[in-house]
């Protein structure tokens, strides 16, 4: 008789995909936009990205040690958070503020709530909200691209320009698509963001439900408010938010139906803030608000389980 080691429960086969792979694929998908950001805003952008990513990694490792959780920095989720956070910061934010953001994202928003999988809010967006409340001036000072040096002149983002009826020409739609406009680090180039999004969709890391519902809702409502629909879709952080923020697994609904509801909700709130709110942009708060509703959306959209339908009813339906 031979003793066999390695008892393990069924199933004994496993799809090859791991959480680490998922996260690193998201990182990969963010790289084109990251490169674009360095192109548009110079080395300064690289510095901010480096600072947020490193603070996120360090904070994660430290808090996992403090909370006696297994240290799983390698799974890449902190890198995703760090990159996403840098993408929603203005290009000339003092570096220590960026670091504070990274710390808030990981420690306050994620680890305090129980770590990966238990946080309610999207860490990058919640950290941005914290920074915006703490440093309203620095967080809203934007610069047009290709300005290096200390004498750079700040310039409004297109959405601010529209909201506050500022004089001066708006960037053309083509410029906005390519990313030649003022804005946060990673939000400006729609083209490069879509490149990454295509990768996520193709690899089935995300599904189309949230982005499509989100963008379609914004398009329809913008039309109702008599806005330039294309402009509204390309402006602000909408593309970044719809494909990379709202689709965050942990803070979005589990089911496809839930995802549609979530996307529509994000769209409505975004447009309402843009049109009626005090801020020019509403993507960040819209997603954070919908994050809070996720447990409820989940409960309302669980699939109808097999066998829950009575056979009498069922058979009449399919006869």
């Amino acid at each position, binding site marked *: *008789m*031979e*003793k*066999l*080691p*390695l*008892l*393990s*429960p*069924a*199933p*004994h*086969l*496993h*799809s090859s*995909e*791991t*959480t680490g*792979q*998922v996260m690193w694929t998201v990182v990969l998908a963010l790289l084109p936009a990251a490169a674009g950001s360095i192109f548009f805003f110079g080395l300064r952008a690289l510095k901010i990205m480096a600072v947020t990513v490193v603070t996120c990694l360090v904070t994660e490792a430290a808090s996992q040690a403090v909370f006696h959780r*297994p240290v*799983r920095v390698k799974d890449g*989720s902190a890198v995703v958070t760090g990159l996403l956070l840098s993408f929603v910061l203005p290009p000339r934010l003092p570096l220590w503020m960026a670091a504070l953001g990274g710390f808030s994202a990981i420690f306050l928003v994620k680890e305090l709530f129980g*770590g*990966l*999988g*238990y946080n309610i809010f999207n860490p990058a967006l919640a950290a941005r909200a914290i920074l915006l409340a703490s440093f309203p001036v620095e967080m809203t000072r934007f610069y047009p691209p290709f300005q290096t040096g200390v004498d750079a002149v700040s310039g409004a983002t297109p959405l601010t320009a529209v909201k506050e009826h500022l004089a001066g020409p708006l960037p053309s739609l083509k410029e906005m698509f390519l990313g030649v406009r003022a804005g946060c680090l990673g939000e400006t180039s729609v083209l490069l963001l879509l490149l990454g999004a295509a990768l996520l969709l193709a690899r089935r890391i995300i599904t189309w439900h949230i982005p499509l519902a989100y963008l379609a809702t914004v398009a329809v409502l913008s039309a109702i408010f008599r806005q330039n629909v294309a402009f509204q879709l390309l402006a602000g952080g909408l593309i970044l938010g719809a494909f990379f923020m709202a689709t965050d*697994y*942990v803070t*979005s*609904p*589990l*089911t496809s139906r839930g995802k549609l509801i979530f996307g529509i909700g994000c769209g409505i709130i975004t447009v309402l803030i843009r049109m009626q709110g005090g801020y020019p942009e509403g993507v960040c708060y819209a997603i954070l608000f919908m994050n809070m509703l996720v447990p409820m959306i*989940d409960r309302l959209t*669980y*699939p*109808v*389980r*097999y*066998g*829950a*339908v*009575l*056979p009498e009813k*069922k*058979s009449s339906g*399919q006869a």
Partner: protein
Amino acid sequence: MISGGVHPLSFKRLSRNFPIQEFLQPERVVLPLSQHTGAAATPVVKKGDEVVQGQLIGQANGFVSSCLHASISGRVSSVDYCYLPSGRRSLAITIENDGSNRRIETISRDWRSLASEQLVEGVRQAGIVGMGGAAFPTHVKLSLPPGRRAELVILNGCECEPFLTCDERVLREETAGVVEGLQIICRAVGTGKATVALEGDKDGLDEIVRPYLKKLEPELKVELKILPERYPQGSEKQLIEAVTGRQVPSGKLPIDVGCLVFNVQTALAIKQAVTEGWPLVQRVLTLGGLVEKPSNLRVAIGTPVEAILNFCQVKLDGRKRLVMGGPMMGQALPETSLPVLKGTSGLLVLGPREGFSEEAPCIRCGRCLQACPMRLAPAEIGRQARLGNWEGCRQLYVNDCIECGCCAYVCPSRLPLVAWFKWAKAELREKKTA
């Protein structure tokens, strides 16, 4: 089409072309008296008794129980407790082979002359249970509850677990016997409608089967359905959904939607029981995985796994896992002395792999919800199970879980979801009886 499910690599071409080989005379067999669903059988032989192949050695204990027969001729060397692959313990009868190959007298009778009750009784006496894995006593299935009518009998040839090809081989090599078994089943439950369900590309198997089915008309209308490959389509509830579009209501039986599902080898065993009086003492299983020569083997029930490994010259190097059943639902064996049971469809040697991770976080990716063929929310049940909140698991319908393993198969965090759900169910059962 079933909802959810997964599509793992099937690996079937490794063994599907190997004709069934026989290994029927092991030195010893170990026959647990509880290898079926229901009450354990009662031993009717004692240590030292001489038995011949096919002789009754365990009497069914009540209605939901099953008879047990000697699978070789020889001397009873012990009646003692042994472990089952599931980890439970059962009384078992061990027989040492005397090499004489004596067997009980078989008979020859025409099932057409028998009434339904006689057919069912023949099945009961032969100790037949579902051979697809569940090992539910077949005579119980054939005895319709009052007020229920069987509309459709489904012959389950899906064999959706990767690696396994034994049912496919049996259907290919013993088509006539299997089809006759199907006829007997239909007669026993009084229906004129049946479906033979195959899955995916079975290398022209449908062309072999079809002429046999044609011959049965008009007495019996049998449809041959080829379903797209999908795991766990061969699971009873999923197969009924795939074939008829009906769903078995939660907590009910297939017969409540007028369906009965039988495995290919069960049908063959029924034919042999009814027409020859031959009990269930052998079965075909697939030996596969990381072995040089995968094969389909006809073995005596009770053959210790190590005897089969020796026969096929399979070496385990201490790191490999040995799995009884399919890779999705089978059990990893703690040792090689365990016997083949009536419900054992495969013996797989699999490589070592990173285990599950109890502590990994659920990243709420939703893949498990997409994959669950019962359309449950495994991520949420798992969250409750982790907290030890069994009642919460029940409210999320953990009792409807068929333990197919699709959720754990797709989970990128490698959470041992199915193991948790089995645990939750056991806790809930205990609470109910307490």
